[in-house]
């Protein structure tokens, strides 16, 4: 039976029988990629090409004009472009760290510690996977207003930290860690916290990375917090600035180049992160099943 390959899943090299899959995947991938290639080109087009008729898809003489214009427009509005950028970086970095910490602690508790009601909590979290935050934005707004968190940097971060998907993935991953490892650490006198930070976190690094990426996407792209909970322009994030810019300028041809540059700035960090870390993400997803 050694020579017989029952299935072609995960082949090691090319075989003519795979051609039929390439025939489907390649055109579809090209189609999916078109808008992204388009925005990449559009962002670097000089004025003359933005106004060209008929419009061209590819850029001929790339320039950074649109990006410099973007910064100029922001500075003219009273809040410098760098301020939005710093806000976004600050919020995203601290939010990612907090999300990993909070969901990780809870995941370890639900996976390895013994206490009453942990099954119920996990089921509640699985139920919350289906939760659509957008549906309760009004009560959320009222609660945040009641807590006096309007115009506080925390409102960018805290709602995102509650990420049932992240908690779920980490718990599924920690379930794979053998109990003997934890037991032997306890015999050596380690506390649960030490075990969590020194043993569990290094082992579940792929899952931590995945959660980090998901949190990054949620925080970096979020405009709702800036729109609803922040009145002070200098505490708003890059995503919000890009959105308001697009809303006010996106309809003019000159504005389109700027809007494309803005879209590119928002999109690229997401993409680069995923490309660098995709191996770890795939490793985590193997344990993503809901039983």
């Amino acid at each position, binding site marked *: 039976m050694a020579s017989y390959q029952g299935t072609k899943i995960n082949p*090691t090299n090319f075989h003519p029988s795979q051609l039929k899959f390439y025939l489907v995947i390649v055109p579809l991938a090209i189609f999916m990629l078109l*808008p992204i290639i388009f925005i990449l080109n559009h962002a670097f087009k000089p004025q003359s090409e933005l106004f060209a008729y008929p419009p061209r898809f590819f850029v001929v003489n790339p320039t950074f004009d649109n990006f410099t214009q973007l910064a100029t427009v922001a500075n003219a509005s009273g809040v410098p472009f760098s301020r939005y950028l710093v806000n976004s970086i600050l919020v995203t970095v601290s939010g990612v760290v907090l999300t990993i910490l909070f969901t990780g602690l809870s995941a370890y508790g639900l996976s390895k510690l013994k206490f009453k009601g942990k099954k119920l909590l996990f089921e509640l979290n699985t139920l919350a996977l289906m939760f659509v935050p957008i549906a309760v934005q009004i009560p959320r707004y009222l609660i945040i207003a009641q807590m006096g968190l309007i115009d506080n940097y925390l409102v960018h971060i805290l709602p995102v930290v509650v990420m049932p998907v992240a908690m779920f993935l980490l718990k599924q991953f920690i379930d794979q860690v053998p109990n003997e490892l934890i037991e032997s650490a306890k015999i050596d006198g380690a506390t649960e916290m030490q075990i969590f930070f020194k043993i569990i976190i290094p082992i579940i690094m792929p899952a931590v990375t995945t959660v980090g990426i998901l949190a990054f996407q949620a925080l970096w792209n979020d405009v709702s917090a800036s729109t609803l909970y922040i009145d002070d322009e200098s505490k708003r994030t890059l995503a919000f600035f890009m959105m308001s810019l697009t809303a006010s300028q996106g309809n003019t041809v000159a504005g389109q180049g700027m809007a494309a540059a803005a879209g590119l700035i928002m999109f690229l960090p997401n993409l680069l992160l995923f490309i660098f870390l995709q191996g770890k993400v795939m490793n985590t997803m193997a344990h*993503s099943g809901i039983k």
Partner: protein
Amino acid sequence: MNGPAWFIIPYWTLFIIFIVIPVVAAIVLSFTYFNAIQAPTYVGIRNYIELISIDTVFMQYVLSNTIKFALIVGPIGYILSFLLAWMLAQIPKTPRTIFAIILYSPSLTMGVAMSTMWQIIFSGDASGYLNSMLLNWGLILEPIQFLQSPEYLMNIMIIVSLWSSMGVGFLAMLAGVLNIDQTLYEAAYVDGIRNRAQEILYITIPSMKPQMLFGAVMAVVSTFQAGGIGVQLSGSNPTPQYAGQLIVNHIEDFGFIRYMMGYAASISVVLLILVYAISKVTFNLLGEKE
């Protein structure tokens, strides 16, 4: 620092503040008249009655739009995710990784960053990209107002949503297909499986049920999360002639534009029940039978 409380309290405190209390508050508020300035007054089920009797926009457009949008984007996006994951699993690792990144990347663009791009592509004048292409090919005689005309907006919303629907669920299913034990297939062929269709039906899908379910839940949620897309594309709420109005936009319209918070809360409750019901059905279809 050793008790479970240290591990449980941080996350679950926020869970209660941002998920449990808002849901409860939405239910409570939905039985009140509340304009965000005066204290809420109890009105019983009047909001719900108005929603299904007086609110013609809701019954005529919003509900049917939401159901149409969800029924097309959800299942098609899900089936497409599975098929693509299955196909990608049959090609070698390097091209597979590259294509997986390409297919996944549009899902990173959800939201604001890319609505710009679609506005440029579907721009309504003769220099809009799609319009100028169609004009050049002689398919149309005058430019179409894609994002402002009711007959196109919904379809464009569906296309854009499908384009960006290969998200986390797709990655989960790809990992699922790759992790199926090879010997299962071999045993199945010995037992008389004949073709790829049977292979998928009897081995692939049953073996990756948990990932299938995870993918399905993600598909349901992301479909409803994408509710804002019509407003982003057309640049106005309400959307032109309510063509792209989904439940989420309706909530925003009444809550943040008209300040009828109690009424908006009752729409929220309907949405939550809808998402929950659909997920329940999904679980019953795909879940492990106890």
